[in-house]
């Protein structure tokens, strides 16, 4: 398993996350960058959405 720490700095603060990928993941750096960006975008959507009692599920 490969662990890739990453973070994004935004007006809301720093988002710090990690990707855990199989050793043979075969992803390009662009694909990894896109996954990280998606994580950040999903997080921004969650923390900026009006609060609800239940959040929708996410498929990744």
């Amino acid at each position, binding site marked *: *398993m490969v*662990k890739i720490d990453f973070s994004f700095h935004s*007006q*809301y*603060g*720093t*988002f*710090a*996350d*990690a*990707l*855990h*990928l*199989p050793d043979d993941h075969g992803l390009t750096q662009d694909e990894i960058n896109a*996954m990280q960006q*998606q*994580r950040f975008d*999903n*997080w921004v959507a*969650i*923390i*900026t*959405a009006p*609060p*609800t*009692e*239940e*959040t929708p*599920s*996410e*498929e*990744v």
Partner: protein
Amino acid sequence: MADRYWILGTGTWSSTNTVNWSASSGGAGGASVPTASDNVFFDANSNVGIGAFTCTMADTPRVCNDFTASGLDGVMTLAGSSIGLTVSGSFFTPATNFSRTYTGTTTFNATTTGKTITTQAISLISGNFNGVGGGWSLASAFTCSTLTLTNGTFDLAGYTSSSSVRFVTAGGTKNLTFNGGTLFCSGSGAFAFNNAAPSNFTTTAGIGTGTISMTAATAKTFVGGGSTFNCTLNQGGAGALTITGSNTFSNITNTYKVTGATSILFTAGTTSTFTDWNASGESTRLLTIGSVTAASHTLSKASGTVSSDFLSISRSTATGGAGWYAGANSTDGGNNLGWIFTAPPAPSAGNGNFLVFF
């Protein structure tokens, strides 16, 4: 303790169904339903071919020791309406091919330390850390609607934990450790951060600077409960931030100032103690410091100099021994004590003596 592997794709994880459980990856079915001491695995042999499959939990709560979903070659959905999942060990879900639709509470009830929580891209409905003596460290960002800390130590380990409705403490011995991580509370209203059970609640800074950031665009309240917060409290959203209780903070900041004006309001009659104060506004975006009601609050810092600016201050008593400089661009809204509405004096140039080495 035994290992249990999910097989045959779509099925029900109930208290009685053994068809979908095997003692080995891709092995024969019929193994017993996992107990709280058994590790459960979902892997490339859990589905039929590379097809998507759904594991629907029934008979709440489903229990296991370690929960590991890894190496999936088809999209797995973990489902269940109002079904809780209680994990006594570590929790791992993969970066891809995993969906969470179950709507119950995920309870982490380990009673030993060294457990890891790796949720990666999924968010949970409700998470409850409730194991006496338990210890969990994040290994990726963690997101849920409501996060409850009841018993044990929850270590952000430098990652981001986000609660979109509220963070709440419950009766028990619990600790929040930062190690450079940030707890985002994006909920609004009276209980966005609710230290409802401050007894036996501690915080640990660890390595680096930890932060609790209140980001809602509407009014939100930090219910401190009179505790010590070894972290920075950040006003990170447009909505006024109300702080209740006489609490102690390492620092207070306002990152929303780059976007607009906002407020930090304290409960009248409380004393908030700070090691550092770095909350300020910006030109045309003054940060309002005031009380919730028409009476004063007290801010205390033991030593040093507060060097703030672009504040609009009212009903605020600044004390403790530090020099509280509001800055030349701040406004005095009245009923203040201790604030100095100038910039702090320039650092001393010394006595003019110096040594020259050749």
